[in-house]
């Protein structure tokens, strides 16, 4: 159900919001939806990135290495305090298995690993995570509470 407060974020996009808005991204597979939240000012950011490394490409929100630092900067511009920002990580699934390709990390795993590395470098704590496995996820980030609801067809809704 789409409420009036919902802001949809597509692949390779990000958005900054405040209560009562709800940031929503649909159908995450190997992509990652990263919710950043300042619980004091309630300035909230969500990015739906697709790949770990930009390698000089300019589509900022498509990649973890350019998209995450940019999201933090934009939140700080909106009044968030960097030291108060916490992170919740969703997605990074491997939708298909063939049984023969376990030797290298799949894109979902690489995306999750990249996000963790960048957040550590930025000194932002990940307080919740729902990543990996083999199913798609939709996430709703409620900026009034900082809660993230993860919906999938394979499992009951999860509140993180």
């Amino acid at each position, binding site marked *: 159900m789409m409420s009036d407060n919902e802001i949809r974020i597509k692949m390779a996009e990000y958005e900054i919001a405040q209560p009562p808005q709800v940031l929503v991204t649909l159908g995450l597979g190997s*992509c990652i939806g990263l919710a950043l939240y300042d619980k004091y000012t309630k300035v909230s950011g969500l990015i739906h990135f697709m790949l770990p490394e930009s390698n000089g490409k300019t589509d900022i929100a498509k990649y973890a290495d350019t998209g995450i630092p940019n999201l933090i900067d934009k939140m700080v511009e909106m009044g968030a305090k960097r030291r108060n920002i916490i992170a919740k990580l969703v997605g990074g699934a491997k939708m298909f298995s063939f049984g023969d390709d376990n030797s290298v990390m799949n894109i979902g795993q690489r995306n999750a690993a990249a996000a963790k590395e960048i957040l550590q470098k930025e000194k932002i704590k990940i307080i919740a995570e729902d990543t990996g496995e083999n199913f798609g996820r939709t996430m709703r980030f409620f900026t009034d509470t900082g809660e993230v609801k993860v919906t999938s067809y394979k499992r009951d809704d999860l509140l993180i």
Partner: protein
Amino acid sequence: MDNTNFGLNSIQQDALKEVGNIGAGNAATSFSKILDREINIEVPSIEIIPLEDVSTITGSEEDHVAGILFKVTGEAPGTILFIFPSTTIKYLVEVVMDKQIEPEEIGEMEESLLKELGNILSGSYLKSIGDMTDLNMTQSVPGFSYDMAGAILSSTMISASSTGENVLLIETEFMDGERKIDGYFFFIPQIESLSIILNSLGFDNDE
């Protein structure tokens, strides 16, 4: 290489479309035989789509669909993906297995059926392309997912894209006269495979 059209002129794009047409035509014939009813194909299209737009090419991101995925190896490697909406799955199970199910009840039997269908269809697709181009191509075992269309499409296309920017799809839509069967077939050749396929058909890629 020009990223917007993969360096392909319109004649080359038409040649690829024809490859898709013959491949999908044969797959549709196999499909018709299995179901004992006529399955038609739309004229295939060649689409070059930015990766960030692939989630919605078959409808909404949250549509519940089955994706059957094959890795294609050999002389012109790539990826094959079938997408069947839940209404089509329900109908296929009804026709082939003589069983009424709700889409939520897709279990191992239904998964096997869809994988096997995918196997046969992609097999006849690749065989006719192989006959036409004299290129040797083999498909992997099928990967299967019954899930959100956005998750299936984005994950598949991101892995299949050679450039990380766009993906070239040879796309065909299957349907029967009564609109009970609706599905998508995507062949996503690796970028290097495009010139190999075109060369084998007598098109010089440098023209």
